[in-house]
């Protein structure tokens, strides 16, 4: 299946790139959606089975694949609206769709890959496709953003590669030198700690560029800022999840070695710093999109804190990353509508949104509540569990510090969001405010509702899947 999927998807991407006809584009997109759905269903049905020896439908992969598919469909829908609204040349439109499909494909494949080098390959592909998406507008700033993103990702992907090399060095004591996670896990006892240490360090640092964690978070922000919002949605949700997969799969390996504690330390430090940096800029920035990007960084920090804390934190981390994906995408989708009203990202020029587009404003409000993990949003549950894991790891000081930072984030985020919602902007003429049908927001409401539902009333399957995916970790 995966083979068919890859070939089909790549060919679809290619033909999208070539096609200049709307109709064909839509048909192709439709086919792709079906394909994506088919892959997801297939993956869910024969879970734990391996295909092409490099792809395994394990529970983590299935979970994230589901998330991706659920997000991808509205993403395409919103991209369509977006491109309708923005008079872009047919060619750039074609590039956009092609890159979009490529990105989704690469991410899915990356989730499924069971070999660290394969993950590496697809991560690299995501960089390339993402760069096309970021450069969609083809202006100076877009170019700058793209350049930074590509460059940082290139460097960090090289780090990952170096890490992989070290990893294979560390494997040499063990019998086999195959770099699949299964094999690594099997031989975790024989891994040479020195090289393993280096390997983890480099791989972690490399993947932070995708995950949006300190130290390599920087370029991601610019990318999410410059990319068209529907693409930005993918960048700041499912693509980050890919980075998470990269780190998490390797973390499972290292967690079964004596280096577990050290790895926790490194992750913990990076995670806390990320939350801190996110706070710094949440307070500072006035560009709504960048603000959303930073909030993603904050959430990734929390996720990794959960991982570092261990215990129930693993469960919480995975739950959190899924819910966050839903919330953040709906927020980015909403941004497209907001931008149509104000033609500006800057909070100074935005305001009184509640008056101009009530349904959209409600989305923004709910998304804010969810993104700051206030109850009743689903993220509250996962954050609650993360805090609990920190508490159980006896990291009270850390917990308190994080809570302080989060409170600051709520204040800053809230200040701006409520400004957007209610305070009338200066010098804004209401005459040419477009009417936006509430139905556009439907998918966003749906995503938010999904986040709440999964958080507060998780179905048994979900819980089982998450439990399975953290099963291999030491208690």
């Amino acid at each position: 299946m995966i083979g068919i999927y890859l070939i089909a998807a790549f060919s679809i991407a290619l033909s999208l790139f070539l096609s200049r006809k709307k109709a064909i584009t839509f048909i192709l997109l439709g086919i792709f959606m079906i394909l994506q759905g088919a892959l997801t269903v297939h993956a869910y049905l024969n879970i734990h089975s391996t295909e092409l020896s490099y792809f395994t439908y394990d529970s983590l992969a299935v979970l994230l694949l589901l998330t991706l598919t659920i997000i991808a469909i509205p993403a395409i829908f919103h991209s369509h609206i977006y491109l309708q609204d923005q008079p872009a040349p047919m060619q750039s439109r074609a590039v956009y769709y092609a890159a979009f499909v490529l990105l989704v494909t690469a991410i899915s494949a990356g989730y499924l890959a069971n070999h660290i080098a394969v993950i590496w390959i697809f991560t690299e592909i995501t960089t390339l496709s993402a760069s096309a998406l970021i450069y969609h507008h083809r202006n100076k700033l877009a170019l700058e953003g793209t350049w930074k993103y590509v460059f940082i990702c290139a460097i960090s992907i090289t780090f990952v590669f170096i890490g992989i090399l070290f990893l294979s060095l560390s494997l040499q004591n063990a019998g086999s030198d195959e770099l699949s996670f299964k094999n690594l896990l099997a031989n975790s006892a024989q891994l040479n700690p020195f090289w393993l240490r280096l390997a983890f360090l480099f791989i972690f640092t490399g993947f932070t560029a995708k995950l949006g964690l300190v130290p390599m978070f920087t370029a991601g922000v610019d990318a999410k800022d410059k990319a068209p919002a529907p693409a930005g949605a993918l960048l700041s949700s499912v693509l980050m999840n890919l980075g998470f997969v990269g780190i998490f799969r390797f973390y499972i390996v290292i967690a079964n070695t004596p280096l577990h504690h050290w790895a926790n330390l490194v992750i913990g430090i990076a995670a806390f710093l990320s939350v801190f940096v996110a706070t710094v800029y949440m307070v500072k920035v006035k560009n709504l999109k960048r603000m959303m990007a930073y909030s993603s960084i904050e959430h990734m920090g929390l996720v990794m804190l959960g991982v570092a804390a261990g215990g129930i934190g693993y469960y919480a981390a995975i739950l959190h990353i899924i819910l966050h994906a839903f919330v953040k995408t709906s927020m980015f989708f909403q941004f497209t509508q907001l931008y149509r009203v104000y033609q500006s990202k800057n909070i100074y020029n935005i305001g009184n949104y509640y008056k101009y587009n009530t349904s959209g404003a409600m989305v923004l409000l709910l998304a804010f509540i969810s993104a700051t993990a206030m109850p009743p949003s689903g993220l509250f549950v996962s954050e609650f569990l993360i805090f609990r894991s920190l508490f159980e790891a006896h990291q009270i000081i850390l917990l308190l510090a994080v809570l302080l930072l989060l409170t600051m984030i709520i204040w800053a985020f809230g200040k701006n969001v409520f400004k957007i919602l209610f305070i009338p902007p200066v010098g804004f003429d209401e005459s040419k405010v477009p009417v936006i049908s509430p139905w556009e927001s439907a998918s966003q409401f749906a995503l938010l509702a999904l986040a709440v539902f999964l958080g507060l009333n998780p179905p048994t399957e979900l819980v089982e899947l998450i439990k399975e995916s953290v099963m291999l970790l030491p208690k």
Partner: protein
Amino acid sequence: MIDVLLITFIITLFYIAIANRMLTYIKVLALQGVLLFVVVFIQLNEINPLNLALILLETIVFKSVAVPLFMAYVLKRNNITREAEPYLPNFVSLIITTVIVVVTILLANGVKDTHLDKIFFVVALSSLFTGLYFIATRRKIITHVIGYLIIENGVFVLSLAVGNEMPMLVNLGIMLDIFASVLILGIFLNKIGDVFKDVDVDQLSSLKDY
């Protein structure tokens, strides 16, 4: 023999540290490609045509022909000034490069591992860090790409040092990716050349929250 080549490689790093001309950088890159090819060729235990072809492609064609030509083309096309204009005087960067090399040697000395060929390790790490340093201190964007390529070479050496190579398929994928990324970098470099007049990093610092 290999050691000689690798030492030459390190010398090229020193040379890059003090060189001023863009073209020199590119030439050095080409030279490094050749060196790498020879190293791999010597290291090769049995001649397997496919493997050989791959290595040829990876080193000679790619590292020492395609990319340098492309770079040169970019240089000419965007009539980038030929001076490198580093932030720090060459003298300093020479010292720093030396320090890097020394430190890596010490580090390698600290490593207790029989499988690892120390000198490979030294070369790899020193070129990695030199590349990073190069990126951090040069003003032109194209120099960033050059730095990146130096890092790539270092990684290549490291992969030689590691010895056990990946399954063929994976290897291919990796190679293609690196190639693609360089290509993309080049393309955007061109674009930047079109958009901005003189390609200077400082112009690319408008996206910030500071």
